């Protein structure tokens, strides 16, 4: 019974995330009825723009110029998130891809870095007046949710171990639409639940910034009018 409800919740979150993503993409692709407004100096070719944009996406270049401490926390946060994502692929693939096996240890290190950098971000938000002034309750809530998910993940890994085989069977069974039993450990249940919430809100919140960036004229429009 419980496993079925959890499965339903996960189906629901995934569907909402998908529908939301499609909706937001549709909205972003609407044509602009106004003059072009690249932020100059801007490349003249799309290839050049892609190159410049890749510095933003992979290196957070503008942020590096703006605020070194924030850059460090945010960059570590996002890179470790990427490795955590890769590590988690082992729960979704069968047989597990060999490179995913290779990076398991790295993924665990990333787990700690992620946890620490989220705390740094929260600390920064609470302490710096210029950040506190613009922070809404939801800004804090996001970080708390993320710290919660990351803590529960680390706890499952290091303290309250769960039956990983049973967990994986459950996850794989989701794709057959015949959910098996979910492990009964509270911490892993909370971990999964938190991740579901994150998924639901992803397209409708500031979490969208990673995709939204690709639709900002200041970062994507080339300078070719004249």
């Amino acid at each position, binding site marked *: 019974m419980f496993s079925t409800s959890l499965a339903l919740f996960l189906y629901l979150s995934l569907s909402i995330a998908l529908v939301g993503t499609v909706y937001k993409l549709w*909205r*972003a*692709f*609407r*044509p*602009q*009825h*106004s*003059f*072009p*407004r*690249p*932020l*100059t*100096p*801007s*490349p*003249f070719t799309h290839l050049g723009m892609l190159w410049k944009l890749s510095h*933003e996406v992979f290196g*957070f270049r*503008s*942020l590096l*110029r*703006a*605020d070194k401490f*924030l850059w460090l926390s*945010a960059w570590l946060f996002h890179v470790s998130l990427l490795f955590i994502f890769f590590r988690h692929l082992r729960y979704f693939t069968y047989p597990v891809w060999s490179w995913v096996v290779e990076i398991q240890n790295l993924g665990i290190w990333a787990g700690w870095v992620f946890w620490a950098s989220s705390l740094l971000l929260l600390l920064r938000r609470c302490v*710096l*007046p*210029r*950040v506190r*002034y*613009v*922070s*809404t*309750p*939801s*800004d804090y*809530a996001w970080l708390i949710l993320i710290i919660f998910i990351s803590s529960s993940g680390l706890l499952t890994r290091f303290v309250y171990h769960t039956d990983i085989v049973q967990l994986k069977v459950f996850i794989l069974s989701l794709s057959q639409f015949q959910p098996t039993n979910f492990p009964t450990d509270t911490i892993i249940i909370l971990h999964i639940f938190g991740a579901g919430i994150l998924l639901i809100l992803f397209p*409708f*919140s*500031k979490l*969208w*910034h990673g995709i*939204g*960036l690709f*639709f*900002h*004229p*200041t*970062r994507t429009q080339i*300078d070719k*009018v*004249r």
Partner: protein
Amino acid sequence: MNFLKLKIPALQTDAMQHSEPYLAKAATQKALGYPEQLVENWQTVAVSKMGELLAQTPHLQAYLDNCVHCSACSDKCHYFLGTGDPKNMPVARQDLFRQVYRRYFTFAGKYFPRLVGAKDFDEKVLNDWYRYFHQCSQCRRCAVFCPFGIDTADIAMAAREILNSIGKGQRYTQEIIVKVESVGNNLGMSKPALQHILQNLEEDLFENTGCKIRLPLDEYGAEVLFIPPSADFFAEPHVDGFLGYAKVFYQAGLSWTLCSDATEAGNFALFSGSETHLQQIAARIHDAAATLGVKRIVFGECGHAWRVAHNLLPPLLKNLTLNRNYPVPQHICELSYDLLQRGALRIDKAKNAEKRVSFHDSCNIARASQMGNISGGQFKIPRALLTACCEQFHEMPRNTTHESTFCCGGGGGLLTDELMPLRIKGALPRIQAFQAVIATQQVTHLATICAICKTQLSQVFPNYRLERAQIISLHQLIGDALVLK
């Protein structure tokens, strides 16, 4: 010196709450097709106008949705650095808009307003809008440093257009738009007045140079249609730059003309956020070029004018038979640079020997346009011209020039007397950078290529123990160095 250490002020809540521009008069609003005064159901009208703008410019909605409130932009605005008012932090300025957007256009804002900081569009919020969207010079410096390039200038333009449409237009900007549309320039100067000024200037030129340098008006068939900002006709130090252009044309042997219907490069509708008037004012240039049968269109030293010319004009000029061997439209700096490279200018640097010069990049040229069809040409070309005509050229600290340049403090439609306290405070970082090169390199003059920068800086310099005459037009320096005989 390479880096200017900027002091980040402590937050002083409401420090600039008193600062607001005069409201546009009823007749002005009416002439532009806006309500004459604050309409009764302004809230509804504003929200529906916001919806319209979100549909027209989807990137506006993206900017509103994608800010993560990281505050990396917060100390990048000269008005914040100068005033310490937290609402002058770019992100807080955006949030004035964002809180209303969220309340009326997002699920979370409709049902959980407190959670996401959404607010009803009430009178208090409206007053904040009017005040703080007129404490933004739309300079885009914050967008350079935002990890996502969120452009507060764009949001401020949208906000002002919404204010226009509920009857709360800004007097200075709106009156200028009326003048340029009815008379042809921002100052409302008629053709006879202009003829008189040009005649006097021609006499001055003859007296000073001994050459018959002409300032032609409405001459059919000239090669170049020249569009200066109208302040160039008489304001100081602008007018000396105007004479500089004339000397360049004279030495190059180029036939040129002004057009009495389009004696204005500026386009204040960019500031007021009105797409309709923006297009309408820009279209005058097309008509002027068609009427006078010119082959080239060249713009004078004006920052936002060049932004409009560069980004918006080319498609409007498509059907004209112009000489496409030159950029259409072309900037006067591009023209002079081209002549310089072809060896068509005879320059004697020694004539500027007593001047030690630095260069102020104007925001709209630095961050919203380009020159010479090379990326970053807007930085290289003016500097190449300056080093060609001055022996002593020294850069201000790098974090205050090029794409990181600080606004003069008077751009974006804020160049009006009632905003003087704001303008003085907003000029602070630019002036600190200038003072830094004065201290280290004994610089005497700050050259620039924007009419607004020239007016603003010459007016605020005395407040910082600098002299008005220390601000100088780039083309004055060129003109002074030319060997005309």
